[in-house]
């Protein structure tokens, strides 16, 4: 820092509730969570989905395809919860629960937005409602996993769920079909039970990540 720059600093203490301070805090939080990289990952998923939708898919493949990219977005959101600071940050940042909640919510909204946008003008199996439900549920699983295993390994649960969900979709054609609402990707878009299950998991994940944050793991 130069002396000139030092002179430009305000003389008095920085007001804690100032908008500029709040924005700076939010920006630093987002950068520390690699949110720009997460956004880039979600954009990559959307672009890949858009390209893939140009092909002709059978009914099974058409349902499977968005689910894979929804999982990619959910995993990115979950991994973005990892904190590089650990305990010092927990002890000093008062607004941390709100920042964590806001970040996760904003990223989820972006994920729904970009994947829905990728399907405009093409046949996105299940439509926007399906995308919203699946991303919300998968994100909830990822956030819960982040709270338990840590941000770095938070991708494991959405990925494992993807494998099970794809199998559940497969059973719709090769019975006996798995019809539990907890496997919401295999349910129709307007299935209330599936939406409730996905929503519940999303709320639990959000609550866990807001209150506890991602588990700090040694060496990360």
């Amino acid at each position: 820092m130069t002396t000139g720059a030092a002179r430009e600093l305000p003389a008095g203490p920085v007001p804690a509730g100032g908008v500029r301070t709040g924005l700076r805090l939010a920006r630093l939080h987002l950068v520390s969570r690699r949110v720009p990289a997460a956004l880039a990952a979600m954009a990559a998923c959307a672009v890949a989905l858009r390209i893939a939708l140009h092909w002709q898919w059978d009914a099974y493949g058409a349902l499977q395809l968005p689910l894979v990219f929804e999982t990619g977005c959910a995993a990115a959101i979950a991994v973005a919860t990892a904190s590089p600071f650990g305990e010092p940050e927990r002890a000093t940042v008062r607004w941390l629960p709100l920042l964590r909640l806001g970040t996760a919510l904003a990223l989820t909204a972006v994920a729904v937005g970009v994947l829905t946008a990728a399907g405009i003008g093409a046949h996105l199996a299940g439509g926007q409602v399906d995308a919203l439900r699946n991303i919300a549920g998968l994100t909830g699983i990822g956030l819960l996993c982040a709270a338990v295993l840590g941000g770095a390994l938070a991708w494991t649960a959405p990925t494992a769920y993807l494998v099970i969900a794809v199998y559940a979709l497969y059973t719709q054609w090769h019975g006996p079909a798995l019809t539990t609402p907890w496997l919401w990707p295999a349910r129709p878009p307007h299935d209330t039970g599936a939406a409730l299950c996905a929503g519940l998991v999303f709320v639990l994940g959000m609550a866990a990540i807001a209150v506890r944050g991602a588990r700090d793991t040694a060496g990360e």
Partner: protein
Amino acid sequence: MTAASAGPAPIVPVRAPRVPFAAAGRLLRLELRRNAMPWMVPLVAVLFWLITYRLSMAHPPLWNVRAMTMQTTASTVFVPIVVGTAAWLGSRERRSAITDLLAVTARPPWARKLATWVATTCWAVAAYLGCVAVLYVVTARQGAWGAPLWWPVAVGAASLPAFSALGFAAGALRPGRFTAPLVAVAAFLALELTAQFIHGDHSYWQVSPLVAGPWELAGDQGVATFYRYLPDLPIVQLMFAAGLTAALLGVLGLPASAGGRWLRRSAATITAAGLVAAGAAIWLAGTGRLDTHGMIAIPVLHNAADDRPIPYTPVCSATPIPVCLHPAYGSYLPAAAAALEPVLAELAGLPGAPVRISQAAATYRQEPGNDVYIGRDGPAMTETPPVYHLLLPVQYAGSTTTGAFAAEVRRQGGDIVNLVIGGGRSATGAQQAVAGALLKPSALPPGTPVAAAAQRFAALPPAARHTWLMEHVVALRAGRITLAELP
């Protein structure tokens, strides 16, 4: 530090290790102990149980069906987890900020990374083999006929090092917290995409480890029972997996930081060899064709000895005409015998009637796209002695309900009657009436003279009916009996 200790240290010659690979073994042991893959083993075990084991157990205890189902689903279960974990471990040095620290160690970075990859792969393969062992032991205890199929196991096991190398290379070359999830999901997508692009038996995509035979015949009970499980496609898949593994591991040794010139040249050679092997495997997969026994044969690799049928001793029913099935299908014998017994009781001992109903092998022919024609291998009836060759409904690909199974076997019972009495499309009225009487319920339109004759003939005592048939069946078959001559 004291002044005394600051003096020049005595030079101690470094001894070469007594065992050349002792250091490498120690490094591997450390990596095995500090690896993340063991923590993933419970997860893949649960996924294996949920998807592979339950699905396999839903099929009858046939090695072909269970092994082929296992190969397809186990790849799906293991790949994303193994790729993600390997990517996570591949980026470990950068993530833990110890790249500079490790740069000054005696081992070249490539060798160090290979140790981590080997440990990850060992855990993944061990988990895979453990899961497969459980499935195979349970199948063996359920009395599956024949020997376990090892080629599907080998393909699954060989694909794990390749996918582990894929994840590890991605993690090492692009370290970051998003690498593991994105590579895991991308690998899963790539694996599933291969299934979408398979069209016919000449598809290059058959090189995918998901494919355990003709794609649309997955889980078909008719293949690899009467004839051997062809190793042609598995050999190509093993070759592809080995080539991909070599190429990906070789890429890790290409950067200038990976080691010395000699090491990098070796890495380049391994990469090139791997790419050649993988490319050759893809080309070979494209030369595949569906053989008549329902397996993918690759002309360059095909061994004619594999086309010989597997000898077996059939299991037979105690019906008037024995129904004999391949022992692998022994569980279907009671249902098949029960469906045929009414007809067999009428036909037993008649001139020209079969002395045995013997299960036939299915024959396969590739149709446009992914359609496959499945029919009986050989004629329905062979002479001296007359034997009828039955094709079970489960050999037509796919599972069937108990009711549909019985209906299809009864339909073939009608074929047996027609062969004995000379029915069929150009049947005479007498032949139609006798067939209608023997095949209950009759499909004849009520109120016609043929239906009336059939009712009359069916109302005869079984012994009288059988006696009349014994005397007149040859004339009936020749079309010399009129409707009025029926008793």
